[in-house]
């Protein structure tokens, strides 16, 4: 294999054993504990989990946006095209963010500056990363707004955020994220605050744009439906750790981890009226009382002595599927 094609096959983003801690009054707790995954060029990776699983902290960590203190990077690497983001200078990191790495957040109202027009905000981002004059930047801003299908972009470019609806604001956020032709788009719950018909429009738009620009997407969400519709690969997180990693098709067809299984069975279906929803008894252990072994053990009906004592590593089962469970594949457990 030639070095060039090797570089092409290398993942765009590789997170290795990332550990992030927070110092609180109650002591130090680890919100992200040894998380590893990678994003391929042009692919969409979903990071899914319930509140408190560490998915948002991971994404902020990748972008170097964890406030330190109270946060602290306790270990690991975040390789963007082979360079460790955590070892870069703050200036270099800032050059990447908004440049080759775009970001979309959940709340478009608080992520946009209310006292500047949306055009000014896009122009600012453009001029921070490349040498263009104001006129060129403005033309590009209108182009971008057109790309994200904001109606009459040459007029709306002078609107303030409050003049736009929630869906339109999220389109502006996407335009802003795409301003400098990023290779990676990190989207943290980009459609959670939106109505379903608007959500469908935005997801359509994101799919379409990644097809057209070839940007890879890392999508953080709690919504399994959104994951199924948009992602190629999925990482499932629970209590600060990755419990399962698989292609979207494999994961939804046959999840392996008891947590993922429970999660899927708990989702009410639109296409059939099920009898009774499955539940996962109990709740996520609080960060200050994380068990020594598997963090799901207290809620897992299959937990053994080993599960309670030792943390299961993420290991390959069945080809390229990765599962952190001592008992997987569970169908082989004798009844």
């Amino acid at each position, binding site marked *: 294999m030639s070095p060039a094609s090797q570089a092409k096959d290398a993942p765009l983003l590789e997170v290795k054993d990332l550990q992030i801690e927070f110092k609180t009054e109650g002591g130090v707790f680890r919100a992200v504990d040894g998380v590893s995954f990678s994003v391929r060029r042009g692919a969409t990776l979903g990071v899914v989990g*319930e*509140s408190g699983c560490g998915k948002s902290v991971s994404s902020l960590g990748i972008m170097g946006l964890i406030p330190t203190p109270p946060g602290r990077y306790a270990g690991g690497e975040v390789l963007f095209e082979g360079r460790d983001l955590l070892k870069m200078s703050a200036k270099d990191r800032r050059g990447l963010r908004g440049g080759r790495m775009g970001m979309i957040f959940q709340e478009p109202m608080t992520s946009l500056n209310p006292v500047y027009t949306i055009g000014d905000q896009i122009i600012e981002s453009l001029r921070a990363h490349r040498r263009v004059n104001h006129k060129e930047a403005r033309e590009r801003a209108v182009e971008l707004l057109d790309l994200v299908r904001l*109606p009459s972009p040459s007029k709306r470019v002078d609107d303030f955020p409050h003049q736009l*609806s929630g*869906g*339109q604001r999220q389109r502006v956020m996407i335009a802003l994220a795409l301003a400098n032709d990023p290779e990676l788009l990190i989207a943290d719950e980009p459609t959670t605050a939106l*109505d*379903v*018909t*608007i*959500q*469908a*429009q935005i*997801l*359509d738009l994101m799919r379409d744009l990644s097809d057209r620009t070839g940007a890879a997407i890392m999508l953080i969400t*709690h*919504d*399994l*439906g*959104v*994951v*199924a*519709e948009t*992602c190629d690969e999925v990482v499932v997180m629970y209590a600060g750790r990755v419990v399962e990693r698989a292609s*979207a*098709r494999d994961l*939804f*067809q*046959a*999840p*392996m981890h*008891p947590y993922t*299984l*429970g*999660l*899927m*069975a*708990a*989702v*009410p*279906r*639109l*296409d*059939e*009226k*099920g009898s*009774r*929803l*499955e*539940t*996962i008894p109990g*709740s996520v252990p609080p960060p200050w009382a994380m068990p020594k072994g598997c963090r799901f053990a207290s809620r897992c*009906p*299959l937990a053994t002595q080993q599960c309670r004592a030792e943390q299961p590593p993420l290991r390959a089962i069945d080809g390229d599927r990765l599962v952190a469970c001592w008992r997987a*594949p*569970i*169908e082989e*457990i004798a*009844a």
Partner: protein
Amino acid sequence: MKPLVLEVDSLTKHFPLGGGLFRKPVHVVQAVSDVSFTVAAGETLAIVGESGCGKSTTGRAIMRLTEPTAGSVKLDGEEVTALSSGRLQAMRRNMQMVFQDPFGSLNPRMTVRETLMEPILLHGVASGERARHWVDELLKTVGLAEHHADRYPHEFSGGQRQRICIARALSTRPRLIVCDEPVSALDVSVQAQIVNLLQDLQQKLGLAYVFISHDLSVVRHIADRVAVMYLGRIVEQAPAEQLFADPRHPYTRALISAAPRPVPGLRTASEPPEGDAPSALNPPSGCAFHPRCPLASDICKQTRPELGSVGAGGTLVACHHADAPAPVALEPAPPVSASLAARLAVLAAARQAAE
């Protein structure tokens, strides 16, 4: 036929905007217009729609938490809208509400026992030792333990807080509970627990529910009948099975096909509707959905369609094109794979063995 608990007829709520003490309001927000439905004992009517469609205002107007502008609300045959404040207070014993935000709807300075005791004493449900007993029983009913009674809201998770809110709603032995997005703030696994709890309670106590939600999957699961609202009006009302099998209003179809489903590779039959929902301050002429509707014709721009019956399945729909052939809204999901079924069976068996 079970007795009707709630009868809502032509309920309307308009909010005046602008103006002053002696001046006429400049604008009127038509939050809810001409909404009618009934709910029988043991039945769940779901109101679905997107933000701003008036579903929450409808719920609040039923409870008279906001005064309706016009229309009638009858609880067990008694008119609620005409009650004096004293009588209304007594009436509220029979109708209770559960809200979306379990963090904002509990007083942080009151223990769970105090929270539950307040309505019990206020409505004279019980007193003294019997009231204490009733609190303990309520906690057990919603799946909490007696020792939880002396704790404060901040000591509980979101799901547990929602259980407390449900216990509070049950404390006066109501006939009707209006649930306004009761599971929207909860994680999937916890959401399932609360949905199951609400269903169990309904079966045991014969409660009538008005279940307000934006989540069609949850509605499909819990509702007997569904009313779809758009910009303050009901655009379609039908038995739940019927609504999902054969939605007649283009907006209902759009909602159903826009809802993301946990099945990779399923393409929805239709494109999501374009644009945003219009403002209730200045609703479009004719049918409010016409600017976004793929079927819109001239008549839709001029005349607002009335809610009328269509087909034999008990569907009411407000659309000039209700008879137009509809694309199948939902591609059926493929059957559960053998390995998934096997794994779920192992989990279920282990859970049963543990119990």
